[in-house]
């Protein structure tokens, strides 16, 4: 067994959240610079340049890229040989507690926005800590702990969609629905997007896949050539919408389409779309 100190997980989680909020990831800025070379609309080019300028101001002045510093979504992969060494006063505190504490610390220390309502339909009081974070834990072989943080804004999350298709449905029909979902997201979800697509699994697994797909580096492709080619076709069709940056027209409507797949029931073809805005804030660390 390998021991990882509770406090180091708290610190790492907080640092990941703060860095993600302040610093536009390199995969996004590279994709924007690439889009600038092909974008034909002068207005769209200007907006893409401002996108990079905004990122430079945020990094330099140490303030968030976007005021919606989002829900904190954490994908944690814990090695089966890892044990969490909590200080005596924390008793039997777990990995999940450490991540929650780290997310709250990030809000306080990094001056991130408290964007969590305690419950959905009654008083909606703000928790004032930007927690709970939403944590997806999986156990993997080994003695490492991998933490991936995604700060997910509300505007784009609101445009997520799920659909159960018939298992005999054609790829064209499913792709049309994906492109329609992106079109419906429109200017509200802050294009250019990163589009996460989950195909297969069951109801909740499919939605999780669509979110996990967002974490794949922009520029990477699905390992299966069939799905890689679907990603390419979808990106082309999404660009053809002409929505452009901020929905004010242009060729650059999405920076990437990532598909993640899983086996599914013989009766089902679940599909989910989770859209991320151009402020695609993600950061990973391995302990």
């Amino acid at each position, binding site marked *: 067994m390998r021991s990882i100190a509770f406090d180091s997980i708290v610190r790492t989680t907080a640092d990941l959240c703060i860095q993600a909020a302040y610093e536009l990831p390199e995969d996004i800025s590279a994709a924007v610079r690439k889009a600038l070379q092909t974008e034909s609309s*002068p*207005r769209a080019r*200007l*907006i893409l340049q*401002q*996108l990079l*300028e*905004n*990122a430079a*101001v*945020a990094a330099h*002045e*140490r*303030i*968030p*890229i*976007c*005021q*919606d*510093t989002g829900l904190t979504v954490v994908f944690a992969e814990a090695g089966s040989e890892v044990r969490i060494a909590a200080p005596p006063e924390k008793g039997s505190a777990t990995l999940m507690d450490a991540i929650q504490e780290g997310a709250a610390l990030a809000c306080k220390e990094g*001056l*991130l*926005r*408290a*964007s969590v309502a305690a419950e959905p339909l009654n008083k*909606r009081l*703000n928790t*004032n800590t930007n927690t709970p974070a939403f944590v997806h834990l999986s156990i993997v072989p080994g003695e490492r702990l991998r933490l991936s943080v995604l700060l997910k*804004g*509300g*505007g784009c999350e*609101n445009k997520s969609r799920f659909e159960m298709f018939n298992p005999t449905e054609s790829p064209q029909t499913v792709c049309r629905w994906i492109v329609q979902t992106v079109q419906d997201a*429109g*200017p*509200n*979800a*802050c294009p250019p997007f990163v589009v996460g697509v989950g195909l297969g699994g069951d109801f909740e697994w499919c939605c999780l896949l669509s979110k996990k797909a967002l974490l794949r580096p922009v520029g990477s492709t699905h390992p299966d050539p069939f799905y890689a080619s679907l990603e390419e076709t979808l990106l082309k069709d999404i660009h053809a919408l*002409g929505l*452009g940056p*901020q*929905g*004010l*027209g242009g060729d650059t409507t999405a920076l990437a389409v990532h598909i993640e797949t899983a086996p599914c029931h013989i009766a089902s073809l679940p599909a989910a779309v989770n859209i991320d*805005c*151009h*402020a695609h804030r993600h950061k990973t660390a391995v302990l």
Partner: protein
Amino acid sequence: MEQETASIKLSTPLTDQQISSLRAGAWVTLSGVVYAARDQAHRRLAALLEKGQPLPFDVQGAVIYYVGPTPPPPGRVIGSAGPTTAGRMDAFTPLLLKAGLKGTIGKGCRSRQVQEALVQYRAVHFSAMGGFGALLSRHIVDSRPIAYEDLGPEAVRRLVFRDFPAIVAYDCYGSSIYEQRSKG
């Protein structure tokens, strides 16, 4: 922020004459007092208007910015402060326009009802660049909460803008930049 064409300089409160001169697609810069309010604050403002009670600020000629900023670091008046989705305020906006509100700032599309109310009450909706909160915060020179502080980031704030860049998204003639784009 550089723009593709020369911007029209506006200062608040907005007059009917200023509003009549604005056409969808024009870039503007806004200066002066603007009120920050978003979802929960709108629910409360609308409830006051429905009961015939006064609002916590003078709505005549006023502009509302749909924003929930991050807290200011030491030495700054505000943190990151870009627009939130305007469409979520659609249900409340006609009521505020009827009371004298002349402008709103957000990101994304408005409903048909808001578009009609902008014509009826001679007002305008601006789009600011979504996700550019760091850059836009440089155009906000003062910020203080004036109501509903229990809402935290959703409190109503009195902001002072200096050359805040935006585009006329819906004008008082029923035109929208988003419709222009889909036609084009």
